[in-house]
């Protein structure tokens, strides 16, 4: 079963705008990861935030983590057409030996 659940599921924005998506999870975690998947391709790791961190930045990406609410958000600033992809959050599951992925959030950036 999937641990994470992204919200909203689909997002269409203009180039240059910011895109925000959320993820909720159910159990206690050591870290939460975000991945990107371009159409027809494999997943690419974007960022990992530890359970003792509240916010983390990587380039145009900003991730927040609220362990009390069991939720995380991913913000992409100044979006580009190349950011068009599906974005998944993933959390360790069953003894931390694997990652459980959410259903994904499809982002379309219109040039």
């Amino acid at each position, binding site marked *: 079963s999937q641990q994470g659940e992204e919200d909203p599921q689909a997002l269409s924005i203009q180039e240059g705008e910011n895109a925000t998506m959320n993820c909720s999870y159910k159990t206690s975690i*050591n870290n939460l990861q975000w991945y990107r998947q371009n159409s027809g*391709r*494999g997943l690419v790791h974007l960022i990992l935030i*530890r359970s003792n961190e509240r916010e983390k930045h990587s380039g145009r990406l900003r991730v927040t983590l609220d362990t009390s609410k069991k939720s995380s958000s991913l913000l992409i600033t100044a979006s580009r057409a190349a950011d068009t992809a599906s974005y998944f959050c993933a959390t360790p599951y*069953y003894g931390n030996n*694997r990652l459980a992925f959410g259903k994904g959030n499809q982002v379309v950036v219109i040039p």
Partner: protein
Amino acid sequence: GAGVSQTPSNKVTEKGKYVELRCDPISGHTALYWYRQSLGQGPEFLIYFQGTGAADDSGLPNDRFFAVRPEGSVSTLKIQRTERGDSAVYLCASSLSGLAGANTGELFFGEGSRLTVL
């Protein structure tokens, strides 16, 4: 190679046939994962190897699915008596440590093998 390599990239087969999907992980990565992804869904865990042994195969849907990693590197996912419901993209990933809970638990994915069962 530099990344995770999966072959074939596409496989079309008939219902009832046997299929093998191969994964060549990043050199030195001890952990290897197989996931299955249906259209519009996130990856679904199938099996996890640490070295040569299957440390967690609880995600395999039934006994038609089997995976091996005999030398701790290349892995093969085997599907017997394929059914139309097996159609999906099968993703392989490798990890340096295999501990998803660790701070270096990033997974490196291959491009996937798209399986279509007619």
